[in-house]
């Protein structure tokens, strides 16, 4: 055991059990997996990805480039840092070789997100951040303070004094003061991982992994989406090593990390310690480790040491040049310029890199500080302040001052900027996770590369889980050295979110399963479910596709059978469809007619109240974007029906034109899609059913002609009847407000029973309309189809001076006789149903070699009960002129002969419409 008495903040009164690589160990609350393993002297915990070399713990928190493990229990999770896994009872983990393994079992944990707003967000609860938060809170700001560690205090070890008191007492008091403010939120175990525009910061809170067992109901992780008026970046600094040969062995660590291990966890990471530093900070580590009982030798290349703590360690001027290993691969000695020194721990300290990621995410420019040997925030950004070590201010007094909002006097620097010592570049590791060495950088520059971005991509330095937290600046510096250019001319590679890796599921949050995307339902949904409907996804809607009846042998009808039955019933008797998903827009105002005349290709202003007109809309390029019926309600009001998918986009389209192009038109648009439920009652007996529903309405053909509508009341409830047909049959669309929809629907079903009323779904609706050649926008069109292509020139006004898309019809391509046009197709074999999407080619008995010229494709294809055969609609080049021709449709290996027909296959004379 390397745990030393009297040190650390772990709770030694309690013991936790865990397993690593199949061996059982113990630790204490407050430990991390890394500290507990080190306490047991376990130094090798992973293998490197390319060279399969042993790897230990190099740094003590999220900047660690080496200590990646796989957690197995409580739930498998790959590629976690042993240094950031809080120890819990029953933890099982294992070492990995630089690659993780995903669980085979589904993750049942909950993840969620939460919004927060504040005037001041402080990231980092070290001394600088705590004071910044306190200052803001005292000012009356709403404050959010986040820190990724389990406890506040940042890199304070507890040996410091603040305002004449023990640092940790000061931390506790400050936290207590902050907690007392009602508008201060303190989030520990919370990593700010991305900083975006306008004070938007994303932070991941780890809520349950440190609790075993995890409490029920609580999300495991939560993504905080914080909008802050002001962001204070107080994220500290990462120590960086000096590169020496064989610097990748277990037992080699950053100096401050070893010190942190001692003070935070009571773990003395080595007994015979060599500290190699060109900076003063590591003297603290030397002194503290010596004080805890280690035998410490400190090597410093500087002639005189700076103003640092003395202690019970040997110091000499010197350089570490390389390391040697014992049989386990961990460090056993170092080679110095003065000879060999045995050791079990080598601490390296080459200086500090301000953790300015969150400043860089919002494109804050960094500037190279030659004295510090570091890049630090180099400009002021509106709404962002960087304080403390993150700003390159490394002394505690300075950090506190910056936290208070003051600008401290910079201290004279005594450090020496040293990136590496002499040695075999192929054994000098720069990125320990990627096994990338100085030799790799030299190869890159030797190949002609001059940019750090190229060097990064050539060597992969900085692309691992740690994103170069400790290696990135080294890589820039060594590249500069090899190229003989100043480091500031190279800069760093780009810092990108996330600051630390984030589980996909945490970002998915609750948008999973049925909450992935809203499910929209009509007022009749429960009825459809009870009736056994099979649903179809149409945009976000669930629409009843067909209603299978119980079949023979206990099963249910298949779709073909059900749809043939539904189709036959509609054309023979009467059917009813839930058409409530159709978009409905009330267009109102003195200029409503004029407005619709611009929106539709045909004339709408001439429509009289009580009348209905079918219309087509095009985009500016003259291609059809939507269609539907329009009811004129009164002088100033129209009710526009759009397709189901068109509801939102068409309303947007109309608003856009109205507000941005014709604001002078006195028109308002109101979506009433859910206000009105609409049920087509369709078929020869629909008159009976509608007549029974509305006995006061004369539903005779003369009194209630096609394309008219009337209002009535049923039990005092307003009901609108419109004679519209999307099937060629006698039909009414019955509309009622959504509240009364289920009751009215049930009423219609009851009234229709004597007439054999059959509820039918979208599939039957599609067949019925296709038999009549009515296109479905989005199925029979694809954004490249004009009204003329659909054979709807009749719906394109020649009288109107202009409407959206009109000018495009005159372009060369729109007059091309070889444009694709909508036609019918009849397979010569009436039992063959062409797959929708099939391509069409000239008539042939044998498929020619590719490329085979294509004439178009099958857009809709069904079995028709009315025709007693299959049929299809298709877009075919010059199709209108090809009616009567034979063409070929390749289907799988077969060539299906088809005949081109007009698109109206059932009742072309239109005799059924009036019943």
């Amino acid at each position, binding site marked *: 055991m390397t745990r030393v008495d009297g040190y650390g903040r772990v709770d030694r009164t309690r013991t936790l059990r865990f397993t690593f690589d199949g061996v059982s160990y113990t630790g204490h609350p407050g430990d991390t997996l890394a500290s507990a393993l080190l306490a047991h002297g376990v130094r090798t915990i992973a293998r490197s990805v390319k060279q399969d070399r042993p790897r230990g713990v190099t740094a003590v928190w999220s900047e660690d480039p080496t200590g990646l493990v796989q957690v197995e229990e409580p739930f498998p999770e790959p590629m976690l840092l042993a240094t950031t896994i809080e120890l819990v009872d029953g933890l099982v983990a294992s070492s990995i070789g630089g690659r993780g393994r995903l669980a085979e079992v589904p993750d049942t944990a909950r993840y969620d997100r939460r919004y927060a707003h504040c005037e001041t967000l402080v990231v980092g609860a070290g001394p600088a951040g705590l004071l910044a938060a306190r200052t803001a809170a005292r000012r009356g700001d709403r404050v959010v303070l986040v820190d990724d560690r389990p406890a506040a205090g940042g890199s304070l070890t507890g040996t410091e004094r603040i305002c004449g008191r023990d640092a940790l007492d000061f931390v506790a008091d400050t936290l207590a003061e902050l907690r007392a403010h009602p508008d201060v939120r303190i989030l520990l175990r919370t990593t700010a991982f991305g900083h975006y525009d306008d004070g938007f910061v994303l932070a991941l809170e780890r809520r349950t992994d440190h609790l075993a067992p995890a409490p029920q109901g609580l999300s495991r992780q939560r993504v905080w989406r914080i909008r802050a008026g002001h962001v204070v970046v107080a994220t500290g600094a990462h120590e960086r090593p000096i590169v020496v040969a064989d610097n990748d062995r277990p037992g080699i660590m950053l100096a401050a990390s070893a010190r942190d291990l001692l003070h935070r966890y009571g773990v003395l990471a080595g007994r015979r310690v060599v500290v190699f530093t060109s900076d003063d900070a590591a003297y603290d580590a030397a002194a503290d480790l010596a004080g805890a009982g280690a035998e410490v030798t400190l090597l410093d290349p500087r002639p005189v040491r700076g103003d640092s703590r003395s202690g019970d360690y040997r110091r000499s001027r010197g350089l570490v040049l390389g390391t040697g290993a014992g049989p386990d691969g961990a460090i056993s000695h170092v080679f110095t310029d003065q000879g060999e020194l045995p050791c079990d721990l080598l601490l390296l300290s080459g200086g500090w890199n301000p953790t300015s990621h969150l400043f860089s995410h919002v494109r804050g420019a960094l500037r190279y500080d030659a004295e510090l040997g570091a890049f630090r925030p180099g400009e002021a950004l509106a709404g962002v302040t960087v304080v403390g070590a993150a700003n390159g201010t490394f002394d505690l007094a300075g950090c506190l001052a910056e936290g208070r909002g003051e600008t401290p006097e910079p201290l004279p620097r005594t450090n020496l900027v040293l990136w590496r010592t002499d040695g075999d570049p192929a054994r000098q590791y720069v990125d320990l996770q990627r096994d990338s060495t100085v030799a790799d950088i030299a190869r890159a520059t030797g190949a002609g590369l001059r940019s750090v971005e190229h060097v990064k991509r050539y060597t992969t330095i900085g692309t691992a889980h740690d994103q170069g937290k400790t290696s990135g600046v080294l890589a820039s510096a060594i590249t500069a050295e090899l190229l003989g250019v100043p480091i500031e001319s190279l800069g760093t590679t780009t810092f990108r979110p996330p600051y630390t890796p984030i589980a996909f599921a945490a970002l*998915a949050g609750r948008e999973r399963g049925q909450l992935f995307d809203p499910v929209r339902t009509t007022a009749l949904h429960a009825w459809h479910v009870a009736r056994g409907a099979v649903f179809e996804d149409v945009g976000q809607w669930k629409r009843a596709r067909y209603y299978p009846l119980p079949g023979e042998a206990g099963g249910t009808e298949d779709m073909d059978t059900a749809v043939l039955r539904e189709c036959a019933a509609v054309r023979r008797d009467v059917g009813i469809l839930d058409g409530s998903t159709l978009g409905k827009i009330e267009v109102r105002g003195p200029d409503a007619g004029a407005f619709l005349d611009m929106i539709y290709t045909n004339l709408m202003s001439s429509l009289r109240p009580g009348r209905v007109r079918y219309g087509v809309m095009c985009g500016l390029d003259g291609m059809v974007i939507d269609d539907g019926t329009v009811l004129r309600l009164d002088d100033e009001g129209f009710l526009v029906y759009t397709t189901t998918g068109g509801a939102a986009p068409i309303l947007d389209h109309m608003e856009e034109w109205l507000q941005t192009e014709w604001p002078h038109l006195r028109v308002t648009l109101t979506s009433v899609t859910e206000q009105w439920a609409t049920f087509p009652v369709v078929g020869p007996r629909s008159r009976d059913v509608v007549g029974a529903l509305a006995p006061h309405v004369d539903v005779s053909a003369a009194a209630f002609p096609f394309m008219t509508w009337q209002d009535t009341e049923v039990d005092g409830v307003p009901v609108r009847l419109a004679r519209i047909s999307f099937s060629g049959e006698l039909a009414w669309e019955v509309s009622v407000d959504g509240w009364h929809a289920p009751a009215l629907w049930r009423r219609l079903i009851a009234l229709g029973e004597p007439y054999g009323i059959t509820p039918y779904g979208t599939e039957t609706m599609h067949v019925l309309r296709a038999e009549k050649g009515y296109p479905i926008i989005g199925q029979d069109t694809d954004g490249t189809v004009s009204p003329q292509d659909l054979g709807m020139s009749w719906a394109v006004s020649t009288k109107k001076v202009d409407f959206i898309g009109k000018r495009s019809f005159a*372009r060369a391509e729109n007059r091309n006789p070889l444009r694709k046009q909508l036609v019918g197709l009849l397979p010569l074999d009436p039992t063959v149903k062409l797959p929708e999407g099939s391509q069409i080619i000239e008539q042939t008995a044998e498929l020619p070699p590719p490329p085979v010229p294509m004439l178009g494709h099958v857009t809709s294809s069904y079995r028709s009960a009315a025709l007693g055969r299959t049929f299809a609609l298709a877009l075919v080049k010059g199709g209108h002129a090809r009616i009567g021709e034979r063409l070929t449709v390749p289907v799988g290996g077969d060539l299906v002969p088809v005949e081109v027909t007009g698109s109206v296959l059932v009742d072309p004379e239109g005799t059924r419409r009036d019943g």
Partner: protein
Amino acid sequence: MAENLPEHPDFLWRTPEPRRSYDVVVVGGGGHGLATAHYLAKNHGITNVAVLEKGWLAGGNMARNTTLIRSNYLWDESAAIYEHALKLWEGLEEDLGYPILFSQRGVLNLAHTEQDVRDSVRRVEANRLNGIDAEWLSPDEVAKICPIVNVSGDIRYPVHGATYQPRAGIAKHDYVAWGFARRADEAGIDLIQDCEVVGFETDGDLVTRVRTTRGDIACGTVALCAAGHTSVLLDMLGVPAPLQSHPLQALVSELLEPVHPTIVMSNAVHVYVSQAHKGELVMGAGVDSYNGYGQRGAFHIIERQMAAAVELFPMFARAHLLRTWGGIVDVTPDASPIVGHTPYANVYLNSGWGTGGFKATPGIGWCLADTVAHGRPHPYVAPFALDRFTTGALVDEHGAAAVAH
């Protein structure tokens, strides 16, 4: 999956000083510009060429794309050029003498609705008639090719099937760029970095000199290969074009053991995924809706993409997002590129590849070099001329391009 990445060649390219004049000036040192340079030298013996790059070579979209390569486009015009490119990809490693890690692992485009199914069948049938490998697969067949896709019925948008192009694949983007650069450099072409084109000198309908941050350069012919920045250059020339630049993001996970043997794309739930050679999952989604030149996008796009990923691949729940980034893509109204003549007789345009031009790299390089060499559009790029927005002869590939790829 290769355990280790291959060794690079000893030398890639020189860092020359720009000369005063070149026969051909290629603006933009991305994949397209470099490939054009390579084929100018290789196919046409034209080597008095400079490639001008404002930043570091191939540091634009070439450094940022998700490396998907496929040719299963709907329309004949697109199929022709992308299939030409795919055939070149199949021999590229040899041509460049550089291991570009081209891996033909196939692509699945999932269908989630009835309309997806129709569109998919339509595309598969069109591909086959154009001689492009394509299959329509049932959900069970999808699961055989990629067992980790959730094909059960219990997700919000169940998988109804997928199109499959077995010859599709991925390649190591940087190595592709460097391979082209190395060959061009060997041929004597000057690749000039940190050299931004800031203006043009014209004489009638000719551009005589290119103004750069490293001095003026006289030119015979100019080929614009500036991807997301094309509009900026066209503005200097006063040439209007229907291009809009949008941020497009991508992301990677940390390294994982192989789990994902193919490429999966889904338009309906907006995500596409492959696993690169090192082991990271590489993913992309849609563009940000607004114009932007910032090489960064909004985080909600990433979040939505993660939701889609976990929905389709439950196993990814605890994979970790390692890095996100953005590129700038130039999008056209019909989601097809704009290539060919400009109003300037000696300036050729290559733009509008939007979210999908990596896969075209060798193909467009070949065709653009041919266009420059012969002073007329290569037949494969002829349908993509700027004037289609006048005639209305668009090549609408929205169906194929709804999701970035």
